[in-house]
């Protein structure tokens, strides 16, 4: 049975037939389906449900929605974690929650001892102390005190988030009266419409309003509009969805928390609309007086929502404190419900108070101010100060405050729209829009239903016509009008005692005194005040309080609030889950990955796979039974040196380049000459960037006159493609060159080693593969093992190599055939680690090792690749300029480290005499050489070529390793084997 002492007998839109049990701070309660955690707590009379951030003052629920500053809860169990405003947590069976930031409970919070020291803790106090001996000593305890809830933990089961795009004509944010009307008109004009609203149910303010539209209760009107919208396939209507980011070109980020598709936990929409209508309503602000944070003090609009939506009145004796007309509707509601109202305190003069007071039979304290709220852990009474200074104390346990309404302009402002200060509203309103958007209703400062509706109709009609839609004939529904909205700003109640705490930012415990102190200390702009006091930096982002900060700064320096200005509105304003931003991009798909047709085979063989450039998954090495990684690498390398190996070279970048000017283009790209290259032959080339740094290297084959097949290193294929297209499309526009990436059209299995030719013969090949008929650096078309192939004789291993290129559809079969036919020859698959060993033995350069963004071809000893005649080749000029300074260069050398068999870490610096001083080079690669049976290394060393034979010192931190400088080639320096 549900015992809800503060629930009314009737009323509210909760489902009184479904009782929901939940737990809060270890105690069990019940509420109804349709409740929020906040409404259920209030119904149960749990008013003290939080402790404040800094002083650990008792706090209760103040708001009814996302603006809630104080009652933050941490969910337990399957939903563990998070600082959830209790007002946004939908009640469900078994929900478990606890207050954040207090221990053991809000009622008995040990940290409340802080209250004794409040005097020591003004804004910025920590800048002034904790310096001795150092901050790090104090930090842990300060940290533990901060932070509110615990972060969500791994006990949460995997939840699927999704992101998707939406393209349409009109996107309406807010499904209050204005938003619904806007969506209705837009949809009737034939537009594709999306309407999003952050509440579970549509209606906005209508849900707590007694007004009528077309003679019907407003909520019925809202339901009818929704029914029409839902029937239209061009309309997407999202509830429980927050629009939180306004990007360029009308792109809005929306997080939908309860999608219809059950496999989707939350959905992030990226919605791009021709027109955005911001019908985001207004946010009520609180008033600044002593103890304005006591449990029992609530926003007037929140009290109204609890009453109408949930049938809860969270007090027995209510008092209202306002500076404007809107709170009177609460008085009317409570009076009609026959509830005790102790009175209404209005800071405005009696003359300023208009028709809103008509019909009220309660004490009206006009031109009075509420001096202070009283109570320990709950509100017990208030002191009212009359214009003559006399004080009256009145008992009450519920204080509804209204400081007026601020149009919810954050999205408008994120869209870079400018704000203007409206004196009548004492608030900032949208001024000049910078994108194709319009604000309507309360968001545009129209704080009365009839006005808001009229404003919406005319604004939306104009927008639709501008956007070439034909808005339907539409007559404005008739609304019962409430009195005109009227307000007198009241930035704080005067005459507080020193030490009285009047909060401008409830969540971050920022008081009026803090603002005064900040200003005295020179922090007199709103941005400085924000950063010195932290006002507005909490989870609520100062929704109800920021305007009071601005008003009070303005007052203190005798300026107008618009001279002070606002702080910057930033997304999201209402926090959203990171998951809804990332969506489906997680796990395997966090980064793209690429496979060759051989990838699966490699995995099946137990290869150690890792990413090796351009997102390709490649085998690092193939572990062997009873051996470690080095053993495996040695075995693979020995196979290549003494028998035969094969590797999957498919990821190498490949480009088909042709057209009238193809030869000239190749000439421009590479530093060396290609003009004399014969058809059917390939040549190694180096490409530079304009900076004169090595961009890439690779072999380019000439297939026919003006027809080339270029290969690039795996990791730089995309960079080279961009570079080539840039040159062609921008600098060489009149040239006729066509580039087609064919990386994935060709797979290659490279058979290498002294027995490579035997294996190829055994496979069956349709051409003569003898060295004369098919020399090094040649390419031939042939049938291999019954399959058409392109065979290239290039070698990155230093051994005879046949790169057998086939279409991917044949690749796996070809690979298996090679393994099978090669078995008697001792063929083994070779991974990247072994390729590394083999190329180091040969002194072949590798991008990312020897080429570390500073080396040029001369440094690498490749003077021959810098054509004497081609000064126009890309990057050439910069190389010449850089070298003209005569500054010593780091040059590629071989190194034989004296380590007795241990590898020197790659990257280790070489220092003069092994001193702990600036380096004179570094080890770029170091491997165990299977042919030399010793550790060998490559390195870049200042003036290295002149120092061959010298002993230099490598430093791995404390360790100094001597090494002898050699030529950078440890095997077959003349290249007889690879040509063989």
């Amino acid at each position, binding site marked *: 049975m549900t015992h809800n002492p503060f629930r009314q007998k009737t009323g509210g839109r909760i489902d009184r037939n479904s009782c929901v049990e939940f737990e809060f701070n270890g105690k069990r309660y019940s509420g109804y389906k349709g409740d929020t955690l906040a409404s259920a707590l209030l119904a149960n009379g749990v008013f003290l449900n939080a402790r404040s951030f800094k002083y650990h003052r008792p706090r209760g629920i103040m708001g009814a929605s996302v603006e809630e500053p104080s009652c933050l809860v941490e969910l337990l169990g399957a939903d563990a974690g998070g600082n959830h405003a209790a007002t946004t947590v939908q009640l469900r069976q078994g929900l478990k929650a606890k207050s954040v930031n207090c221990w053991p409970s809000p009622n008995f919070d040990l940290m409340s001892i802080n209250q004794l020291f409040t005097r020591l803790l003004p804004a910025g106090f920590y800048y002034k102390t904790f310096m001795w001996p150092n901050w790090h000593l104090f930090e842990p305890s300060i940290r533990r005190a901060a932070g509110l809830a615990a972060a969500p933990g791994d006990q949460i089961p995997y939840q699927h988030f999704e992101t998707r795009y939406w393209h349409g004509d009109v996107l309406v944010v807010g499904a209050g009266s204005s938003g619904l009307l806007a969506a209705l008109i837009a949809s009737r004009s034939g537009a594709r419409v999306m309407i999003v609203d952050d509440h579970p149910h549509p209606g906005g303010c209508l849900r707590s309003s007694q007004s009528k539209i077309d003679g019907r209760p407003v909520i019925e009107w809202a339901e009818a509009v929704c029914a029409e919208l839902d029937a239209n396939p061009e309309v997407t209507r999202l509830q429980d969805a927050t629009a939180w980011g306004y*990007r360029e070109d009308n792109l809005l980020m929306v997080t939908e928390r309860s999608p219809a598709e059950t496999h989707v936990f939350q959905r992030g929409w990226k919605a*791009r609309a021709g027109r955005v209508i911001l019908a985001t309503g207004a946010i009520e602000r609180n008033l600044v007086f002593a103890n304005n944070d006591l449990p029992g003090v609530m926003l007037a609009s929140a009290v109204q929502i609890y009453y109408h939506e949930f049938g809860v009145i969270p007090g027995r004796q209510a008092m209202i404190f306002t500076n404007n007309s809107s709170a009177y509707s609460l008085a009317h509601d409570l009076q009609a419900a026959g509830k005790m109202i102790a009175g209404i305190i209005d800071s405005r003069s009696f003359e300023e108070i208009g028709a809103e007071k008509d019909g009220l039979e309660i004490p009206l304290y006009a031109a009075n101010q509420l001096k202070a709220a009283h109570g320990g852990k709950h509100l017990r009474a208030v002191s009212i100060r009359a214009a003559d200074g006399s004080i009256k104390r009145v008992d009450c346990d519920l204080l509804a405050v209204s400081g007026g309404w601020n149009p919810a302009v954050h999205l408008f402002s994120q869209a870079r729209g400018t704000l203007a200060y409206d004196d009548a509203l004492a608030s900032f309103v949208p001024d000049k829009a*910078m994108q194709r958007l319009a604000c309507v209703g309360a968001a545009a400062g129209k704080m009365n239903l009839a006005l808001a509706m009229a404003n919406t109709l005319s604004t939306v009609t104009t927008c639709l016509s501008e956007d070439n839609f034909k808005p339907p004939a539409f007559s404005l529904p008739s609304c019962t009008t409430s009195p005109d909205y009227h307000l007198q700003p009241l930035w704080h109640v005067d005459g507080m005692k020193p030490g009285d705490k009047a909060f401008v930012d409830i969540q971050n415990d920022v008081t009026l005194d803090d603002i005064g102190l900040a200003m005295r200390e020179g922090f007199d702009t709103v941005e400085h005040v924000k950063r010195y006091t932290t006002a507005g930096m909490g989870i609520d982002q100062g929704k109800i309080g920021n305007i009071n900060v601005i008003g009070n700064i303005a007052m203190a320096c005798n300026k107008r609030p618009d001279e002070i200005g606002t702080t910057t509105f930033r997304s999201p304003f209402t926090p959203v889950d990171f998951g809804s931003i990332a969506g489906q991009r997680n796990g395997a798909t966090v980064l793209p990955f690429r496979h060759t047709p051989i990838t699966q085979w490699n995995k099946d063989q137990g290869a150690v796979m890792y990413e090796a450039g351009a997102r390709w998954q490649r085998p690092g090495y193939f572990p062997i039974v009873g051996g470690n990684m080095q053993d495996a690498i040695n075995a693979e390398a020995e196979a290549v040196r003494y028998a035969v190996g094969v590797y999957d070279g498919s990821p190498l970048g490949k480009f088909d380049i042709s057209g009238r000017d193809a030869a000239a283009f190749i000439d421009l790209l590479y530093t060396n000459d290609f003009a004399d290259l014969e058809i059917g032959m390939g040549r190694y080339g180096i490409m530079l960037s304009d900076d004169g740094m090595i961009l890439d290297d690779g072999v380019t084959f000439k297939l026919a006159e003006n027809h080339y097949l270029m290969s690039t290193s795996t990791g730089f294929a995309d960079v080279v493609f961009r570079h080539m297209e*840039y040159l062609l*499309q921008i*600098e060489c526009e009149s040239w006729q060159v066509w580039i087609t990436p064919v990386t994935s059209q060709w797979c290659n299995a490279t058979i290498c080693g002294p027995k490579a030719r035997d294996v190829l013969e055994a496979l069956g090949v349709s051409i003569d593969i003898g060295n004369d008929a098919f020399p090094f650096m040649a390419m031939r078309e042939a049938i291999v093992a019954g399959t058409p192939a392109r065979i290239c004789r290039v070698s990155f291993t230093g051994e005879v190599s046949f790169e057998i290129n086939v279409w991917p559809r044949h690749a796996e079969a070809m690979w298996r055939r090679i393994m099978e036919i090669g078995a008697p020859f001792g063929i083994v698959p070779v991974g990247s680690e072994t390729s590394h060993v083999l190329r180091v033995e040969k002194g072949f350069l590798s991008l990312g090792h020897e080429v570390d963004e500073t080396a040029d071809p001369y440094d690498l000893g490749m003077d021959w690749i810098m054509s004497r005649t081609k000064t126009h080749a890309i990057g050439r*000029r910069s190389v010449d300029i850089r070298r003209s300074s005569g500054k010593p260069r780091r040059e590629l050398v071989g190194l034989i480290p004296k380590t007795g068999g241990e590898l020197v870490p790659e990257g280790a610096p070489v220092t003069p005499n092994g001193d702990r001083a600036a380096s004179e080079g570094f080890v770029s690669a170091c491997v165990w050489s299977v042919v030399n049976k010793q550790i060998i290394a490559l390195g870049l060393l200042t003036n290295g070529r002149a120092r061959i034979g010298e002993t230099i010192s490598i430093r791995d931190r404390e360790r100094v390793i001597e090494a002898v400088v050699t030529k950078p080639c440890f095997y077959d320096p003349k290249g007889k084997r690879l040509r063989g």
Partner: protein
Amino acid sequence: MLTLPCPFCGQRDETEFLNTGPTKPARPSSDVTDSEWINWLTVPVNPVGYVEEKWWHVKGCGKYFTIKRHTVTHQIKMPDEDSA
């Protein structure tokens, strides 16, 4: 996130493109001085206002094209449009 006007594809989402930087003056001929070359190489235009730049429709049609983009408002104009 912008939408960009690809001359071939029309308006497309920014994520399909690569911004390849501000338009450079024509590549200097080989007879310029070193310092002219260095200037061309290292000094970009950096206006608070419209910058003419090259975008590559890398995930779309592959076209490189030129637009003017305001470096504060991120508004886009065609290269021949008045930059005022």
